[in-house]
């Protein structure tokens, strides 16, 4: 299941979704809003998504993970809009029969999402704003 939402991410719903009797392992990754970048205090983040393409890419990444590893169930959900310090920006949950696949698939999904999925974040500082990684 892949989705993009403006609402807070519900980790319990994700756990319920990936739980299955054939799984002996469930991994979660939470990407959360950090309070500083290079020691500069961050006030909040704004996320923007090209929804249609982002969902397509998220599904492609999930399909590839299912090809490579023995994935039983997965959830990939990314939040957009205004996020506060500590909020969950992205959640990846994977269930597999054995733990190695769960770790590897989860790692692959978040790493590839960060490289390929058209979602952008802007850091809002007390004295300015920066689109993350936009410039060399």
């Amino acid at each position: 299941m892949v989705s993009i939402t403006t609402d807070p991410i519900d980790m319990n719903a994700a756990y319920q979704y990936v739980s299955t009797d054939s799984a002996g392992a469930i991994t979660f990754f939470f990407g959360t809003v950090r309070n500083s970048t290079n020691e500069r205090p961050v006030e909040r983040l704004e996320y923007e998504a090209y929804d249609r393409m982002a969902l397509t890419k998220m599904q492609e990444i999930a399909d590839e993970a299912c090809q490579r590893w023995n994935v039983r169930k997965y959830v990939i959900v990314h939040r957009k809009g205004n996020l506060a310090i500590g909020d969950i920006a992205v959640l990846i949950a994977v269930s597999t029969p054995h733990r190695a696949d769960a770790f590897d698939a989860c790692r692959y999904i978040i790493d590839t999402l960060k490289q390929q999925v058209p979602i952008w974040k802007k850091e809002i500082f007390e004295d300015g704003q920066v689109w993350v990684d936009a410039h060399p």
Partner: protein
Amino acid sequence: MSNRVSVQLFGITREIVGSSALTLDLPQPGQVGELLSNLKEQYPALNGLRSLLVAVNGEYAEADQPLHPNDEIALIPPVSGG
């Protein structure tokens, strides 16, 4: 014959252009590379980005991909999700 395409803009490209979409007349048949060079000329700040890709109908496109008026086209500045 003109080849008018519309382009969706996100993140820093939306701020550089000052709008979430624009329309552009390209030569017939226009290609992704021409779209990019045209936009970089009109909006020089686009040249300062770490990368700038074009998506056509939801897929990343190469410079020689042709563009048609009904294509869904988007500028993709460096992504930073997660």
